[in-house]
């Protein structure tokens, strides 16, 4: 299949250098690609999507009347990472998660970092994600963020930048796992030749980490889901299936004497560790949102009594607020005395006057984000928006400066994708997964999200994004 005319000048391309040469870690794949016909590639693509549909690899889109379930398009050209690059990412992510965990433990207990004014106290204490009921609490084994899905992007200079920390309930790991299975079938030989590090033991590692949170010899573990209408329901059931644990809804659980039980056909059975995929605010209507129909009344008391462990711990949201993000380099230095290995994207805090002024004056060059929104909603991409939209966001920022941050527009790196018009570059990000149990471990793989539309920078699945299998090479 031809790659002539592929443009790699404007952005950092993962496969080609600016001069159009093949990067070394893509050499084998390029050889394969140059020998295979475009018809064959299209066939592989077709059968990959067909398999996705047969497997029911769906996510739900809210407010979409074309039916609830959609397939996340999987592009069959892999995104490949050389081991040397991975080593640095791995070290940087471990450092970051380690520091953020210490930060969480601190802000809910001694608050040293706030007293030392490294992070402004009001930023934390007034945050709606700072859960007062968690004050004075140390979760089992002192771990707050058990599962992290950090978003990174690569700018023009080829450098990786952390975009978001995602410490709450990061999703997408099932796509990483299932995509790998599909892509393995597409390139059986190439896979052997390349030497790709496996990701398939993720569910086993996840289970081990969850079991580690309880002191019982054989703890009962469950995945708590809001139900089939949640956008990530496929993933919840997939992970429960792969770990061989129960997938529970709020209605399945009840609390008695500060212990949590599942309602089974044989009566009540105690549950020890809950991998919860519902938001903090919905866990317990008695402690948090009283209108929650998803949670379990009294479960927070059971948690406080140490009779049940949650992954992730309630309250982690305060550390992945987009405003707190700006302080993470300082947080790393404060707790670990180290320089951050991975860079932050320079961030302007609209809460600070100088920054705000700069943002309002340069809004057409910046990406403005709401500090508490996820999924690419509540976001303005300055250079790609109209004057009216600029005006609307200026007004929003002036009314509610604490709610907004701004960052320069990064030019996300591109990877070749199979499109209707042959092979063309599309922008991608990178979401590796980090587990924090007995030790911190970064899974050698990632979810690579692709903005399928030409030139688009929005990779979110809910807004026309697709995905790619991500290969981390042994060498």
């Amino acid at each position, binding site marked *: 299949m031809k790659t002539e005319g592929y443009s790699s000048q404007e952005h950092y391309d993962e496969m080609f250098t600016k001069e159009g040469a093949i990067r070394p870690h893509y050499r084998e794949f390029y050889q394969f690609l140059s020998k295979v016909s475009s018809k064959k590639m299209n066939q592989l693509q077709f059968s990959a999507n067909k398999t996705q*549909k*047969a*497997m*029911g690899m769906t996510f739900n889109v809210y407010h979409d009347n074309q039916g609830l379930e959609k397939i996340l398009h999987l592009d069959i050209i892999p995104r490949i990472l050389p081991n040397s690059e991975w080593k640095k990412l791995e070290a940087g992510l471990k450092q970051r998660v380690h520091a953020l965990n210490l930060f969480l433990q601190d802000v809910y207990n001694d608050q040293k970092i706030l007293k030392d004014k490294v992070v402004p106290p009001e930023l934390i204490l007034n945050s709606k994600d700072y859960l007062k009921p968690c004050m004075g609490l140390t979760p089992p084994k002192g771990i707050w963020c058990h599962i992290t899905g950090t978003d990174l992007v690569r700018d023009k200079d080829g450098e990786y930048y952390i975009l978001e920390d995602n410490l709450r309930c990061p999703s997408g790991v099932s796509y990483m796992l299932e995509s790998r299975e599909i892509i393995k079938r597409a390139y059986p030989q190439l896979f052997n030749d390349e030497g790709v590090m496996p990701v398939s033991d993720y569910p086993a590692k996840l289970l081990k980490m969850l079991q580690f949170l309880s002191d019982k010899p054989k703890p009962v573990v469950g*995945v708590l889901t809001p*139900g*089939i209408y949640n956008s990530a*329901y496929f993933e919840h*059931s*997939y992970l*429960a*299936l792969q770990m061989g*644990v*129960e*997938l*529970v*809804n*709020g*209605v*399945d*659980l*009840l*609390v*008695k004497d500060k212990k949590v039980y*599942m*309602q*089974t*056909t*044989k009566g009540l059975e105690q549950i020890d560790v809950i991998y919860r995929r519902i938001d903090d605010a919905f866990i317990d209507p008695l402690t948090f949102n009283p209108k929650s129909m998803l949670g*379990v*009344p*009294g479960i927070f008391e059971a948690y406080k009594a140490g009779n049940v462990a949650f992954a992730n711990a309630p309250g982690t949201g305060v550390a992945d607020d987009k405003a707190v993000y700006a302080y993470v380099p300082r947080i790393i230095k404060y707790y670990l005395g180290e320089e951050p290995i991975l860079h932050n994207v320079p961030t302007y805090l609209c809460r600070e006057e100088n920054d705000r002024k700069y943002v309002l004056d340069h809004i057409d060059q910046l990406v403005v984000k709401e500090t508490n929104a996820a999924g690419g909603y509540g976001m303005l991409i300055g250079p790609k928006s109209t004057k009216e939209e600029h005006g609307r966001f200026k007004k929003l920022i002036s009314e509610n400066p604490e709610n907004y941050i701004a960052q320069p527009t990064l030019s996300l790196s591109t990877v070749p994708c199979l499109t209707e018009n042959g092979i063309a570059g599309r922008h991608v990000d990178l979401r590796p997964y980090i587990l924090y149990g007995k030790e911190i471990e970064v899974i050698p793989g990632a979810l690579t999200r692709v903005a399928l539309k030409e030139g688009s920078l929005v990779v979110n699945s809910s807004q026309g994004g697709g995905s790619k299998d991500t290969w981390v090479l042994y060498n």
Partner: protein
Amino acid sequence: MLSRVASHIYWLGRYLERAENYARFIDVNFNLMQDLPQDLKEQWEPLVAATGDLELYLKKYQGYERHQVMYFLTFDGENPNSMLSSVNKARENARIIRENLSKETWEKVNELYYMLQTGMEKKVWKKEDPRQFFEMVKNQILLLYGLADSTVARTEGWYFRQLGQLLERADKTSRILDVKYHILLPSPIEVGSPLDFLHWMALLKSVTGFNTYRRLYGNIDPSGIVEFLVLNKYFPRSIYYCLKEAERCLHCISGSSSEGFKNSAEKSIGELRSRLEYSDVDDIISVGLHEYLDTLQLKINHISDLIDSTYFRLKDNFIT
């Protein structure tokens, strides 16, 4: 096993069996119609009557034109028991408890769902002979049963699905038999006529029981067929057989011995099973076939309610 999960597995079993039986309903009627003398009109009303959804049908439609009835029974999403509705609900139940199913099972259920979607797009109910499609649906469901049979561990989940399947099958066999009651012969003189004979034969074929019946009973005669489908001890679609097996499932679930009962569901099904065990076909005829089947259906519904209250009902978790 979680009560909620058990309930979804039970209903998965029921809806799959329901969909399969609706495919059989259509088949039986097609077979019957083809054998009718030319001056006799097609009869589709009995089919609707036998499914128990006549009231809903009359609310929506007038007359019993073939395509209309066929649509109502197969692809009408507003009919909660149509084949489409059953398959949708089977898949929904499977999706909810996907972590409890093998990957293959889920994928076959998913395939079945897309099969129906395609059938809907192609408007198969309007085809001159749509039986091939229904055959395909039936085969897909049989494939699922085969898959389960050779891969699913015989633990609680297996027995709950079997339980759902068997109770549904008992109900549907009674309804298939009832179709014959609803089909009117041109005149009473025709009872026992070649036409009557053809009806019974078609009916047996629709439950894949024709050859077995021949071997066990020989001549086609109404009382033999009623005995075969209601009371036979060995035919896996006979009502007695289904109830006996369903009772066994309940005992396996509760871990009780094969005698007596541990809960109201076991008590009720044991009573019904033994009633059938010690009946002969004259007991049925003397009550009247239709009346007898009607009572039977009510009792099966009651057993399903008892299973629900014994195993599936969740306590409100606000009461601690």
